[in-house]
C-alpha cells in the first residue's frame, strides 16, 4: 500500500478517521493524502456566505486548507504527502480524487458531511459503492 486518501468532512469526527488511516499507513508504509470536498450547506453561518461567489469560494477553500494543514501538523512529519481541497459533491469528489491521485485505499468516516448523512451515512455508503478502489469505513459516533 502506497497512498491512502483520507476523506475529511471538517467535523470533530474526522480525528477518528485520520487516526485509523495514520495507524494503517505506519504499519503498511503508506503515506496520506488529506482530502476535503467543500460545498455550500444550509447549516453554514450567514457571514460565511457574504460577498461574491469567488469571495465565498476563496474563504471556504482557505478555511478548509487551514484545517487540513492543522490536522497534518498533528501527525508524524512526512506521513502526510499532501493536502487537497476542492469544490465538489463529497462522494463524487472523493472517488474522483482517489483515482486522479492513484490512492490504493480511501479512508472515510461512516457519518459526516452534514444533514441526512447523520442518519444514513450516505456519503460513506456511496463512496464504498462507487469508488473503483478499496475503501475503509471507520465507525464514527454521530
Amino acid at each position, binding site marked *: 500500500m502506497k497512498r491512502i486518501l483520507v476523506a475529511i468532512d471538517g467535523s470533530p469526527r474526522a480525528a477518528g478517521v485520520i487516526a485509523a488511516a495514520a495507524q494503517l499507513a505506519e*504499519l503498511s508504509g503508506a503515506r496520506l493524502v488529506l482530502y476535503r470536498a467543500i460545498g455550500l450547506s444550509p447549516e453554514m453561518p450567514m457571514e460565511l456566505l457574504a460577498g461574491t461567489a469567488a469571495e465565498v469560494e476563496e474563504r471556504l477553500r482557505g478555511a478548509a486548507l487551514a484545517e487540513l494543514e492543522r490536522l497534518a501538523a498533528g501527525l508524524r512529519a512526512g506521513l502526510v504527502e499532501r493536502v487537497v481541497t476542492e469544490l465538489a459533491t463529497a462522494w463524487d469528489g472523493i472517488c474522483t480524487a482517489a483515482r486522479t491521485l492513484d490512492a490504493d*485505499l480511501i479512508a472515510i468516516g461512516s457519518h459526516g458531511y452534514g444533514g441526512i448523512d447523520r442518519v444514513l451515512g450516505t456519503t460513506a455508503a456511496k463512496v*464504498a459503492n462507487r*469508488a*473503483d478502489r478499496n475503501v475503509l469505513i471507520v*465507525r464514527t459516533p454521530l
Partner: protein
Amino acid sequence: MNTPKRILVPIDFSPFSEQALDYAMTLAHQLEATVHLVNVVGIPATGAPEIGLAFTATVLDKVTVENQAALDRLAAAHRDGGRLDKTLVRIGDPRDAILQAAEEIGADLIVMGTHGRRGLSRALLGSVAEMIVRTSPVPVLTVRGKK
C-alpha cells in the same frame, strides 16, 4: 480505531470474496491479526407452508454442510503463516448474520469484497456490502473486485 486484531471476511465463494480474502491475509500479516471466515446461507424468502418448511430445512442442512466443507477447503489454502483462524457457516439474512458473526468472534474489522457493478444493476441491487457499511459497529474495508 485500535489496531485490528481479528478480521472477519464474509465469503460467498465468488471471485470477489476471494480477492477480499487475499487482501485480508496481507493486511493480517501487517497488523499481526487473525482472519476469520463466515459464509451465510440465505433463507429463501417464501411464506412456505409446513411441508415447504420441512423441505427447506433439509436443503438448508445439506447446503450448510457443503458450504462448511468448501469454506474449510478455502481456509486450508490460506493456513500458511498461522493467521487464519475460525470458519463459520450461518443461516439467515446476510447482513444480520455477518454482523452477529462479527460480534461472536469479537471482530474489530470486516473486510469484504464488492462486485463493482455498474449502471442499472448497481442501482437496483443495493449490495450486502452497502448494508454492512451503513450498520456495522466496527470498521469495514471494502475491496473492489477486479474482473
